């Protein structure tokens, strides 16, 4: 059971290091998916927004880490 718990914890840790980055990425994806499915946003535009959004979130995450540390 300990091994299963350890593997499960590691599996979650594979995707979440900075919780804020993971949360913002999920919110971005959910927002774009909703806009494509419900508001008829062209899927290609959704893909381009996803690319730009991911890069903005990444830049924001590393900037926050850089400011946090001396």
């Amino acid at each position: 059971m300990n091994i299963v718990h350890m593997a499960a914890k590691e599996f979650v840790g594979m995707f979440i290091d900075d919780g804020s980055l993971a949360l913002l990425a999920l919110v971005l994806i959910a927002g774009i998916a909703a806009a494509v499915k419900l508001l008829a946003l062209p899927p290609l535009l959704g893909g381009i927004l996803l690319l730009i959004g991911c890069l903005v979130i990444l830049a924001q995450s590393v900037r926050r880490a850089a400011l946090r540390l001396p």
Partner: protein
Amino acid sequence: MTNLAPLVSTVSAAFLGSFVEVVEAFTIVLAVGLTRGWRPALTGAALALAALAAFVLAFGPLLALVPITTLQFVVGVLLILFGMRWLRKAILRSVGIVPLHDEEAAFSNETAALRRQAGDRRADYLAGLAAFKAVLLEGVEVVFIVIAVGGAHGQTLAAGLGALAAFLLVMMIGLAVHRPLARVPENALKFVVGLMLTSFGIFWTGEGLGADWPGADLALLAIFAVVALASLAIVRWLRDARPAPAGGNLR
């Protein structure tokens, strides 16, 4: 060319991602082997590989039941999270905010821990467990990389062969030098793999949403180029904004 681009990208991502993970697992197995003997080291490693194989055989066929657009979307989202995590850490390491991963230090720490347990009557069991854990935990990441970069385009076999090639290469080098592979430029590899996985994630999430990327599969290369340029710009921006780091580089 249209078919070759994703194949080369898939095999490269699987090979490079697996190479880094296998190097880390090898360090621990080597520490166990040299400190407590090869029997617990190889038993632990073999049991972990068997557990991983059982996991793949049990859950792998289920992927065929998932509709391709759903699979692309789910795998794409997971790859974005996984790839951006690698990329973030590689960027922070390259500017010296996070220390570089040091295989010599990991080897020394593991060896010291095993020596402390030498008096324990369960020392061989604990050593085998250390090897088991290392191979299982790094192996889970290898399995995910193979399934994620290969599964959404029906190239799991090619991705698996890329991972197998990485495994064999690390074993050959490791058995030849008989010490941790400390000279492998781990952070540079992780940087590239982070770029590749993030690009795959964005591409497939877009496809899962119904995006008809211009140039079809070749769009993956364009996305990779944009993510790479942006990441290098972020590194430069952080370097300019911070004082010179001690030991921070792409290696």
